């Protein structure tokens, strides 16, 4: 992600490399605009691979990865009290889950920038940050308790719709086994790539905190407003998150490895109920022209692998 000029070839990437990564997406975006784009979900692709093996038959394949909610956090601007009532927050709790005020001090603003981790427990109640996220996204009201540097205590209540800022940051979204061997995934899921996280549009920020050879993982971000709680609900377990992406198909040869992988190593993940739903939702967004591909040149001047 951070190649310096000296590490790059003196001539840079060829025009063809750039055309493949940027103009390719632009061409698909034009087809999204004029309604001629062909989108399949990964399940549809796996059901009838022979129908799409001719060049130009399919532009995009949507697929979604459900993943454990550990490794995610929310940044919320929490309304606590009126302007000037206190200087800075020292401690803050949402439904008894500890949040972390800052890093911006918000002197005398009455609102607190609050980072909350999914894994943060609310004492020994069994409730935690992930349950808090689900409550917020489900439209339920949340109770705030804030202790200021002046040692005053303030209480308030709010719901997600009333927040001016609420963003979900996933820093460790694990992809199914074998994902890192697929060129199309590595080529497509680059920083700046548009995705849908729990149904809300956002971007790939970069590799995740636990990204390793053989264990591909991503970091993602999207606004919490507009997230779909039903994708996150996990009866009998902790909530999860579901990241959906649209892979641009440049060559018919992109398809076979994707189908093989989906059928052999990623079935449980990709064909699960929330994944199917999220992939279908993304397909609908594309067909309704409310989701487009990022237009992105090669990163660090290096052409994407091909």
């Amino acid at each position: 992600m951070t190649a310096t000029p000296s590490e790059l070839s003196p001539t840079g990437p060829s025009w063809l490399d750039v055309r493949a990564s940027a103009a390719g997406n632009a061409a698909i975006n034009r087809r999204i605009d004029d309604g001629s784009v062909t989108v399949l979900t990964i399940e549809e692709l796996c059901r009838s691979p022979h129908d799409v093996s001719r060049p130009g038959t399919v532009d995009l394949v949507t697929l979604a990865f459900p993943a454990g909610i550990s490794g995610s956090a929310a940044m919320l601007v929490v309304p606590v009290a009126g302007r000037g009532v206190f200087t800075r927050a020292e401690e803050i709790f949402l439904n008894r889950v500890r949040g972390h005020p800052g890093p911006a001090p918000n002197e005398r603003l009455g609102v607190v920038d609050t980072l909350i981790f999914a894994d943060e427990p609310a004492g020994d109640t069994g409730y935690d940050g992930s349950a808090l996220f689900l409550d917020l996204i489900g439209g339920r009201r949340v109770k705030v308790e804030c202790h200021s540097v002046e040692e005053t205590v303030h209480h308030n209540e709010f719901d997600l719709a009333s927040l001016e800022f609420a963003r979900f940051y996933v820093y460790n979204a694990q992809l199914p086994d074998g994902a890192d061997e697929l060129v199309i995934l590595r080529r497509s899921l680059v920083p700046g790539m548009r995705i849908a996280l729990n149904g809300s549009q956002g971007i790939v920020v970069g590799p995740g905190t636990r990204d390793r050879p053989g264990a591909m993982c991503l970091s993602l971000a999207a606004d919490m407003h507009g997230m779909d709680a039903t994708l996150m609900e996990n009866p009998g377990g902790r909530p999860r998150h579901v990241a959906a992406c649209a892979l641009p198909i440049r060559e018919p040869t992109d398809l076979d490895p994707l189908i093989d992988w989906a059928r052999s190593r990623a079935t449980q993940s990709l064909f699960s109920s929330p994944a199917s739903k999220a992939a279908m939702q993304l397909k609908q967004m594309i067909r309704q022209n409310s989701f487009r591909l990022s237009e992105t040149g090669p990163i660090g001047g290096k052409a994407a692998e091909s």
Partner: protein
Amino acid sequence: MPAQRSIAEINERLARGEAVVMTAMEFKQEVRNGRRFRLGDVDVVTTATRAVMSGTSAILGIPLHSGDPARRIWINGLPCLVAEQGNGQVDVVVQGTAESRDFPNGYGGGHLLRDLVSGKTVDVEWESTDGRTQYRTTSLNQLPFARIYSFRNAYRNYSAFTNAHNRRSYREHPNTIFANRALPWMKALTVSGSGELNPLENDPEGRVIHPGTRVLVNKAEGVVIGSGTRASHHGPNLSLAADLHGMDPEFMGGFKTRHGMEITNSVAIPIPVLDEGVLQRLSEVLDENVEMDIADLADRIPFTQATYADVWDGAALWVDFDGDRCIVCSFQCPAEHFCPMGAISWREKRIDQALCVACGACTANCPGGAFSGRGHEPRGRIGELELGDRTMPITYRLSNRRRVIELAVYLKERLTERSFFLADAGLPLRLTP
């Protein structure tokens, strides 16, 4: 107005070596010379900002095989937030404004990030759930993950502040990040903002700066995640991310204030000239047209205005130390003590220019007049501006225009030598009214 050119088109021109890339400095100079740009004359204009950016954090992945989970962690004495742990790694969040318990009011999150990027080893101390405390050292090249996540950075230009209401607290003990020294009534002005070179000043509505826009943070490639907290139409700002690996320590660091530790970052953003609207805005944004509100520090209500030409036109971008003028203040050099970057050594009679942000605090704090803006006589200030019949001394600049210029030039080089291309996810910035 529909876009008339596309990111893909400009990337193709960059790849062919045909794109016309200008720094904001070059572009604005040509506008001042009378040139009227037309669509197609220029493909990309590089903009930048470098300033105190409170809303900065970093996530660090630290390999720790400690057995029991870590309950609390400190790095160089800085308290870290434990985000996730397991499989031999603990992911922690370090806040840019965090302060080290080992060096109160001397070492903060910004210092730690700069030390890591400089290749220094840092001390990790952790307390596990069984109550044991363990120690180890590490360095950036041993961290599998190290990324700045900012939640509120790269503001469009900011207000200037002074003690307009003659409040005693600001005259004697100013407890604010906008003061480096006592602020006598209307005789000391703190300014922020890189003026006409600022990215969001040139695109305040997010016409071309979007989530997914590729940027440089402290010289490393990064990405705009979206608008930052408190971003509004009047005061837009950004949430950014970039890996520490590849950053340049000279463009970042800790910043000591009268109200705790702060952090400085540098951000460069390419403005692709996609339509007439982008071009028009770039042409209109000149220092002499960019208004700067001047407000009282306590109530933050503007009482007058100046422009960024008043701040930067002819301003010294470097500060020099004339050792012959040092009066050796009983070995308690106020310039050294109050330097927010720790760049001054009175014993060696030198300023570490790799650290210096030319804020000018030393020019106001040195009783001997040993510090001055390069090319200027010592005068107890880094600049001044005229407000009616009053001359207001500028004693503190929280933006560093020298590094802004260097960064805009660097981004232009990266674009023209085909090691940086444009990216855009096309999502809108979310700005509150």
